[in-house]
């Protein structure tokens, strides 16, 4: 009996001394929500992945590290979901992390990319990756997660939009062109002259391509919003911002492709049929806030805005209704940036 008591006491001590692993961050819903990339500081290596869950209305931070036991990398810039996988482009680490979109477990890492920025999925087997520094777009083989080739654009690249058999790639840093590539033979087939530094692009419900040109980093030119007809590669509409001080970025569109959104000292919205740029903000940026990226819920058009604060401490994710009414605000990682909406279906 004495021994039994001793063993029981010993077991209690052992059990009480055993640190329970903290899985609190892993208890996120596997349902619908938003994957948010936190860029972290350049060369700080503190980029991370967050998930906002529709089910719990909570945000879960640092998930890539918690799931995979290592850092996501230096400046994760963009994320795209295709099938059961999500592709995270990690700019200054020169890689793409391929993760399971539900469990977030790493499936593959594609290395050897030069300053990759965005990924455009062509089909189940092929994707293009733009580059801030290289003159070529990398072609990825999504079957074995390798780089299968390059397309020489003779200029750097940024946003990628796939329209049928064509791929439109913007030449952002110091550029003023949209390169048109045939997705069938991976050749440059045309280029379209636009405004200075085409930064972001979206496709509307009529298949028209909208391009936001920010006018240059020092605002030496007027920013422009341009509508392009993809079948003819021709410009159909050009809206010039009224002052050089305008600094629009991050062009987005709602789920039905009817309303455009972009950042310009706050969030502005514009119907695709409008002939003028919006004069007022849908959502005002308050003092102390620094709106960095936006994302539009494709189902209900809720507006998700990231706030980078001072680009050093953890930023915030704020959610607004389509009318711009504040819903909630929660802390994300350092410099929360690109978002990708994970629909409940198949999630």
């Amino acid at each position, binding site marked *: 009996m004495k021994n039994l008591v001793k063993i029981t006491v010993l077991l209690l001590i052992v059990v009480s001394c055993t640190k329970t692993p903290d899985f609190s961050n892993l208890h996120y819903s596997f349902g619908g929500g938003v994957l948010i990339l936190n860029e972290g500081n350049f060369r700080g290596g503190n980029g991370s992945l967050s998930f906002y869950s529709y089910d719990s209305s909570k945000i879960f931070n640092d998930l890539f590290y918690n799931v995979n036991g290592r*850092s996501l*990398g230096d400046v994760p810039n963009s994320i795209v979901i295709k099938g059961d996988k999500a592709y995270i482009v990690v700019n*200054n680490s020169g890689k793409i992390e391929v993760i399971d979109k539900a469990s977030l477990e790493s499936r593959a890492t594609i290395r*050897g990319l*030069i300053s990759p920025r965005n990924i455009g999925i062509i089909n189940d087997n092929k994707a293009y990756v733009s580059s*801030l520094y290289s003159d070529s777009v990398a072609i990825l083989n999504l079957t074995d997660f390798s780089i299968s080739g390059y397309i020489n654009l003779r200029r750097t690249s940024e946003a990628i939009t796939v329209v049928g058999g064509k791929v439109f790639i913007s030449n952002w840093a110091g550029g003023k062109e949209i390169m048109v590539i045939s997705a069938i033979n991976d050749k440059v087939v045309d280029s379209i002259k636009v405004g200075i530094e085409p930064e972001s692009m979206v496709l509307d419900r009529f298949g028209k391509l909208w391009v936001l040109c920010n006018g240059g980093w020092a605002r030496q030119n007027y920013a422009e919003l341009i509508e392009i007809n993809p079948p003819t590669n021709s410009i159909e509409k050009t809206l010039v911002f009224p002052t050089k001080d305008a*600094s629009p*970025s991050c062009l987005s569109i709602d789920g039905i492709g009817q309303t455009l959104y972009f950042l310009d000292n706050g969030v502005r919205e514009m119907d695709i049929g409008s002939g003028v740029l919006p004069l007022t903000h849908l959502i005002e940026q308050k003092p102390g806030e620094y709106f960095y990226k936006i994302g539009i819920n494709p189902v209900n058009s809720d507006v998700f805005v990231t706030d980078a604060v001072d680009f050093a*401490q*953890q930023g915030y994710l704020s959610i607004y209704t389509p009318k711009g009414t504040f819903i909630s605000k929660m802390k994300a990682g350092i410099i929360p940036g690109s978002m990708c909406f994970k629909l409940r279906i198949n999630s």
Partner: protein
Amino acid sequence: MVVFHSLPLNGQLSTDYDTIKIREVVISTNKPNSDPAGYKKATIDSTVLSNYSNSNLSEMLLENTNIFIKSYGMGGTATPAFRGTGASHTLIDWNGININSPMLGQSDLSLIPVGFIDDIQIYFGGASMSLNNGGIGGTINLETKPVWNKETQISLNSGIGSFGRYSGFIKVKAGNYRIQTVTKGFYQYAENNFRYLNNEIGIEPVWQTRTNNQVRQHGFIQELYFRRGNNITSARLWYQSADRNLPASMLTSPNSGERQFDESLRTMLNYNAFKGNSNFSFTGAWMLNRLNYFNRLASIDSRNLSESLTLKTGFENPIGEFTKLKIVLDELSVIIKTNNYDHKIARSTTTLTASLVREKERFGTTILVREILDRQTFLIPDFSVGLQFRVIDEKEYFLKANISRNSKIPTMNDMFWVPGGNPDLKNEYSLSSEISYEMNQKISKSLHLKYDLSVFHYSIKDMILWHPGEFSYWTADNTRNASSSGVESSASVDFVRNHFTSCLKAGYSFTRAIGGGSKIENDVSVGKQLMYIPENQFNTSLSCGYENLYSSWTANFIGKRYITVDNSKYLSGYLINSIKTGIKLPLKRSSIDFNFNIDNLFNINYQSIAYYPLPGRSYNIKVLVQFVK
């Protein structure tokens, strides 16, 4: 910060038999600036420095002081942090003239060869104001000075070590009691291709080899000294260059092919005249600094050239029996040519400093007032007051206290870099206070004890930080305040008996440097420890010598350092051990010295800056030959 000073190390222990075999000469100088009472100042003497003649200043400070060195690794940039302040708050002076880059406002200690320096004085906090303005954290003054004798001395020092490291150093000294010439030259190349464990690249840690990490440095210094009576005239010329590849972080791939070329040419003319207890000094220094940075991948070709002319004159004169008045006028003119500014920029700063030092019986007092004229605008005057009390008469037991207001004008990059430079920046300034106790006691013929303890507090206002501006690019602004408080202490025991010598030293510092006063609502960094400032630092060393043999052991502990402003992530602390052993063989009046050392004895995997690995265990062999005639 705790500094171990004046104590020989690593086999260069000053013993009776050494003195016989190698005629060591006491180096003395008639300095115009006597030490102000009430301030903490430490000295690293020439015997310690001679052990590091093939090393750079960051390596020497790291192992011999508690000044925190933030290093990108072998060959990479290394900057100092005094008492929780930043690199730009530390001045590096060369014979009292600031050599920090006017563009960056800081010095890269990895580019300064210790072999070029004869003496190092470390001025903590307010003590730095006796030399220059802007050293909020402190000043490290590098001295080159003559030894007045008739000896001709040639020293050759060569080393070879792990990771493709080769170094050579030569010093030739000649002259007599009126003229001295000293020439020093060095060359160093390091492949720095060490292996490290990368646990960030995949699910399992991977051993990798550091690439694009080569460093090639060379330089020389020529000194000429003329003495006539009590007056000394000197001319110095210091050239050096460093060509280095910059490795990527552990998270970055492929290597971006970054490269940096640093080149500097420093010239100095100095005249010191002494008459009784009075003295007059004049120094003129012209310096050129080139820093070119290339990034093949990002197509960056950054070319930066700065020229500065410093004219500094001062006199010191007794007022009555116990008081000295010192007046110093300092004019600095800077011209910057770079493709990162809109156009060539010039700046002129004039500083007038007046100080009174009174020492009577056991009490000492210093009062210092400074006025700065920067770009034709008078700034709010700085001041410092120090008090000193000798606890026991005729014994070296001191209580010291001081308070200071010290300003730092913005760097040229802060004001004129495109994009983001802000010409309207205000000065940073600090209000600092310090209380310290120092004792230096010879216990017996063979035992010597030194001890010091300091408590300090800094409050830094209008700190300049870069943050995102209106058009998405970063801009400099006086955004916040910060404070730093701490305790530092050091002790050393010297034991000498017959042919045996030993020295045990230990130092500890606790620094709480926190961010405050932010313009951001709910700023989570307020009240948190500043990034990359360790709260705890500890170092210790034991040196022993017996006849011709010597050996030493050093251990350096750096506590955890936060790498996010909210203190949510940090780099773990580390303890690095090194050992060294050698033999010094006398050859008439000359000598030959062989030594072997192992750094990072226990092969610790560690980082000073996140994701920039530092080398594991490494080996070095050095041979020092000294001819004396």
